[in-house]
């Protein structure tokens, strides 16, 4: 085996670059890394996706290092300094209770990312599993599952989330559950549509002829094919999830004060909108920027991950 490899690629790779570009991969790990490397190259040429990725990474860094970056205690009230304009002491001003908006914004990033990521982690597997099973098994399984999806889709997602929060009680965890319940159906739909296009393909027939069980076919062969479009869809959905979370916070049904959730901050700034615009505008801009970044990244990922691009 070894002499064959040396025949094909003259010197053994010594640097990471050579290892990544080696014409003949010598281990499964190397082969997978090479594929990722190619995708990264394709993503790099997409400026707006790269911008989205950078913004998301920046927000992630801000969320992780919030205690180091914050200048004030986010819960400390100082009524003598309420409703201050942005200044050297309070970089983004203070809110109606004299709390530093800049520090609250940093900690708010944690909550927003927490909600967005946890929802995505809950939603993607449920949607994938239900969609691919419905598409591959077909028959009455398909009918039952898709009618359930139809019922969920018939409600506007924010209203559905509102109803769940009303039933479960306000709070971040309940908001996450409610948003998840409202946002898995479109993913199930997507996964089912993808499954229908590939279930008759030769490579699925081939694995059936190998004697594979339906479970193995769905998990090992259909799910990997649906994965990329689901990843794209979830990334694009992140924006909607963040907006719904902020909306629930705004309505007082998500994170509760004094939590620095962006939607809650926006909601408390509403009363002072005309006199002290920054209290509402700053968390609003943060929501806008994060949603935009996820949308741009999702768009770029679609170009990179689409199996039709090889």
């Amino acid at each position, binding site marked *: 085996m070894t002499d064959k490899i040396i025949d094909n690629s003259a010197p053994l790779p010594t640097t990471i670059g050579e290892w990544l570009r080696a014409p003949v991969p010598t281990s499964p790990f190397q*082969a997978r890394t090479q594929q990722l490397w190619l995708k990264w190259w394709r993503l790099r040429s997409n400026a707006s996706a790269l911008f989205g990725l950078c913004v998301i990474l920046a927000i992630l860094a801000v969320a992780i290092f919030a205690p180091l970056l914050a200048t004030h205690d986010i819960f400390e009230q100082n009524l003598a300094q309420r409703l201050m304009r942005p200044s050297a002491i309070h970089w983004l001003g203070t809110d109606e209770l004299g709390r530093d908006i800049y520090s609250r914004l940093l900690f708010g990033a944690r909550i927003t990312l927490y909600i967005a990521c946890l929802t995505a982690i809950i939603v993607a597997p449920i949607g994938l599993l239900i969609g691919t099973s419905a598409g591959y098994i077909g028959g009455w399984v398909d009918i039952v599952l898709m009618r359930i999806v139809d019922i969920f889709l018939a409600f506007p997602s924010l209203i559905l989330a509102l109803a769940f929060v009303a039933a479960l009680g306000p709070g971040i965890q309940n908001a996450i559950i409610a948003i998840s319940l409202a946002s898995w159906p479109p993913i199930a739909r997507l996964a089912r549509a993808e499954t229908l296009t590939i279930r008759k393909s*030769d*490579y699925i027939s*081939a694995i*059936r*002829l190998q004697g*594979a069980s339906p479970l193995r076919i769905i998990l090992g062969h259909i799910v990997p094919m649906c994965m990329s479009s689901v990843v794209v869809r979830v990334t694009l959905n992140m924006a909607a999830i963040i907006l719904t979370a902020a909306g629930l916070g705004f309505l007082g049904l998500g994170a509760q004060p004094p939590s620095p959730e962006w939607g809650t901050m926006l909601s408390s700034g509403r009363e002072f909108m005309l006199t002290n615009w920054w209290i509402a505008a700053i968390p609003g801009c943060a929501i806008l920027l994060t949603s935009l970044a996820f949308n741009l990244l999702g768009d770029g990922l679609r170009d990179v991950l689409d199996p039709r691009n090889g």
Partner: protein
Amino acid sequence: MNVTTDKIIETVGLTVAFGSGATSTTAVNDVSFFLDRGEAFGLIGESGCGKSTILRALAGLNPDYSGSILSGNKEVGHRRDKAFFRRVQMVFQDPYASLHPRKMVQNVLLESLIIHGFDNHQKRISAALDAVGLGSAFRYRYPHELSGGQRQRVAIARALIIEPEILLLDEPTSALDVSVQAEILNLLKTLRRERGLTYLMVTHDLAVVTHLCERIAIMHSGRILEEMTVERIRAGEVKEEYSRNFLAASIGYKPMEYAS
């Protein structure tokens, strides 16, 4: 028809219809044939004559057929079990569609071994790749990095790695260019000699079928018109008018006929 006891696979009155009611079309109509152990049998006919449908029904991809399919003189169920797939494997027409785009060559082969509970995975994978002339350098490749001929070799390796007795070949060379076609055909020929495989090949290409098979059946609109040996086809001894036209069309332009 010669009667032998060692019919490895046989169809009796196989009929496959698609659709129902007024829109129903019968793709395969009352087809009976058999394969002896170790022989290579070819089904040949124009596009849409039902030859691939027979193969899909035999393989178990289409359970909606009437008539019966016998294996070793025992009827097999419409839904096939693992033991059946262990004995009967198939190579598809289009090597660009028959390999999972996200799976490395090694994983494609490994999965078959795991499903059927084989041991010695790494050794068997190396042996299978060597047998189809690919070698270990192709082990960690993805299908999109391979040419059509290389993909078809992987597909053949996948079919053969679980050591089946019967190989169903659905026009295995028609998606490849001519020089690669010859390579794949010779590979199939060698593998059959080495392993004593039984082939059922479906094709519309007379040259391909006469190269590989000993016995050939000509199909037309869902029926087998006639069955004959390769020698008789080569000699042009056919009974049916359609077969004669088919052969003439396959052989092509013949200046001798016009000269005489």
